[in-house]
């Protein structure tokens, strides 16, 4: 038991902080958001050169051999920066390929991905499924000469940028059966794919995909057929560890901004921060900031837990706590900034939107409370 960052992690933290300081002044971020490309290819290349895109992958897969805690350090910085780059989808797709891919698949995708040349995303949600991972109507038909994909996926995060998407599809069983789920690698350019790109409240954007008789080669199957659910669950937990750290970064940026505002904004001839009613609210934000950081660390560390039920329970607990702390800080930051807090102009509202989006993705608090009940039932 040791909650100190290692020397390497300390260096990574400093490197991330430097990167964020240099490149993510809020006006620059807003320019990138407005220019239609969604994010900066130049920054993406720099992140690739720093080794961050595959930081937690084993060295033989082109990674740095780090842990989820390392990915979390990068995510925290990107949360602080309110970054637009599709880092999270890249992490999720690359980890699935590293865990499940054949040597050929790894060689083909992980190299270009690490170098920032290949964009990837994971399509695992459907409109009727809400947050349920095993509710999957998209079907994968396996034939002698390959596979056929039929159906649709909703809210594919980062999917608008993806050259290649990992799609969850059902190769057997009923729509809600936990068995029979498979993962396939789907090229953006294949015939039969319809896409609808749209903006999201947090500026990151997403895409709905529709597949009509999309023909895939047998080599597009990622991992064993029909047994993907445990891996999708792992991916969900990894996503929670990532967004928890991202939330920790965003929350600390909001606390800092609010504190400065309370010190500098003068009304009735004194700083807002001289009022005890506001001081105590600021203190509660500060407490929530520390709690966010703590539970994010817990989530990252528990990703190393070998027992899947214990891991799932821990990451659900993480999501439940993040939902509380992030919501609290986001709402209070807006309120304490007064009318400026609800404008487009100030960064505060944009952090608010991102934290709200985090709470609505990868299972909301209620869904995770149910998931914990299921875990407790299994134990």
């Amino acid at each position, binding site marked *: *038991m*040791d*909650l*100190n*960052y*290692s020397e390497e*992690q300390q260096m990574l933290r400093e490197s991330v902080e430097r990167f964020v300081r240099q490149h993510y002044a809020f006006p620059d971020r807003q320019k990138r958001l407005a220019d239609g490309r969604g994010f900066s290819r130049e920054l993406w290349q720099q992140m690739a050169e720093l080794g961050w895109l595959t930081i937690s992958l084993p060295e033989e897969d082109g990674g740095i051999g780090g842990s989820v*805690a390392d990915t979390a350090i990068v995510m925290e910085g990107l949360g602080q920066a309110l970054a637009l780059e599709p880092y999270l989808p890249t992490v999720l797709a690359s980890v699935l390929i590293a865990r499940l891919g054949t040597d050929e698949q790894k060689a083909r995708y992980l190299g270009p991905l690490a170098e920032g040349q290949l964009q990837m995303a994971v399509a695992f949600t459907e409109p009727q499924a809400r947050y349920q991972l095993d509710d999957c109507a998209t079907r994968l038909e396996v034939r002698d000469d390959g596979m056929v994909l039929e159906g649709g996926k909703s809210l594919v995060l980062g999917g608008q940028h993806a050259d290649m998407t990992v799609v969850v599809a059902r190769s057997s069983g009923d729509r809600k059966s936990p068995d029979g789920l498979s993962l396939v690698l789907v090229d953006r350019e294949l015939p039969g794919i319809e896409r609808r790109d749209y903006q999201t409240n947090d500026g990151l954007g997403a895409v709905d995909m529709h597949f009509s008789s999309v023909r895939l080669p047998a080599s597009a199957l990622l991992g064993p057929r029909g047994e993907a659910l445990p891996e999708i669950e792992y991916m969900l937990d990894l996503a929670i560890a990532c967004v928890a750290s991202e939330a920790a970064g965003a929350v600390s940026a909001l606390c800092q901004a609010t*504190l400065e505002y*309370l*010190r500098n904004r003068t009304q009735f001839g004194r*700083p807002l*921060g*001289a009022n*005890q009613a506001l*001081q*105590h609210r*600021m*203190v*509660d934000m*500060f*407490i929530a900031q*520390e*709690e*966010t*950081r*703590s*539970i994010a*660390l*817990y989530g990252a*560390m*528990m990703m*190393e837990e070998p027992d899947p039920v214990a891991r799932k329970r821990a990451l659900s*607990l*993480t999501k*439940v*706590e993040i939902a*509380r*702390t992030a919501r609290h800080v986001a709402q209070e930051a807006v309120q304490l900034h007064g009318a400026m807090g609800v404008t487009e102009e100030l960064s505060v509202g944009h952090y608010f939107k991102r934290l709200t989006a985090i709470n609505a993705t990868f299972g909301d608090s*209620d869904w995770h*409370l*149910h998931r*914990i*009940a299921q875990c*407790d*039932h299994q134990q």
Partner: protein
Amino acid sequence: MEFRLNQEQQAFADEVREFIRTHLPADIARKVRRDQHLSRDDYMRWQQILGQKGWHTFNWPEEYGGPGWNVIQSYLFEVISAEMDCPIIQPFGPRMAGPVIYTFGTEEQKDRFLPGIRDSTVWWCQGYSEPQSGSDLASLSTQAEDRGDHYLVNGQKIWTSYAHYADWMFCLVRTRGDGRPQEGISFLLIDMNSPGIEVQPILMMEGTHSFNTVFLDNVKVPKENLIGEQDKGWSYAKFLLEHERVDNAAIGVTKAAMRRLKAIASQERSDERPLLEDPLFHARVIEVEAQLQALEVTALRVLSQVASGQAPGPVASLLKIRGTEIAQRISELTSQAVGHYALPFQPGYLRDEGAEEPVGPAHAATAANNYLWRRSMSIYGGSNEIQRNIIAKHMLEL
């Protein structure tokens, strides 16, 4: 960064478990498990067993007879102790008087007072609050008049935990009236058997007696019982309060309370199934568990800071605020869990006097009392509002 125990820590945890398993008297463990009120003898028996092992003062450095544990070991000891139904070690000697004496006391004072704390043969109490000085502690007015070889102390202390058990009191007194209120305070050690001391009980709403009023009427306190310099007592008191706040997170005890809540909610039935399987009640429990998990990691982060030589500082106030809020919420849910059996008032059972049988199921008997008692947590040790003031001023610089 690693959440699991390493081999050395695991071996330490095993040693602690084994010692408790073979040494904790069963009657004491049963009372703790039932959340009953412990007597002086219960506490002293367990603390003296720990004292013989050198563990009663487990947070002391080796040069004063502590075991020389690092903060993680101390943390594990507390968590395991609570998990195995050990009584809380009363903090007044080992956590409060002791560290002040070995940090600011003379060699004579160390020789005289530290052994009794190490062995737990002496019970200490804390003479801080006064009727007119609660949160505003520095305004205290108990006078200590310089009479050459002794001080003559007159005044009144209140909320003095276990003064009726205590042999000695460490006490804040006013030795100077001018200047800032903080500047004229001195730190005295007072023998509770001195003539002129009268202890009056304050009964609490849940039916127990742990707090007291202490009247000091012309009490003679020899000069050699002054800690450090006259008029500088506030800085020693502050040193102590900061330590108290880290302790007030009480993670081990709160984790044990969470386990007890789940056990009780598993025994209680609601619509033919365990209450814990009621989705609404389960959700309420898990929401608190998530907060407790975050608090535990925060406490471990603070301990890591302490381990690397930094003072805990105002972040300790955060632990006090959240530690008490979470413990209160758990006690509230435990009381809710027992349903109607939150109503019977049986202070005799709570104090384990005689053979009084609980009206309802045994697991329900102390749930409501415990909820009532724990309302004091956000008030004692510097109310949670005072803690927020401290964070606002010293950490946020507002």
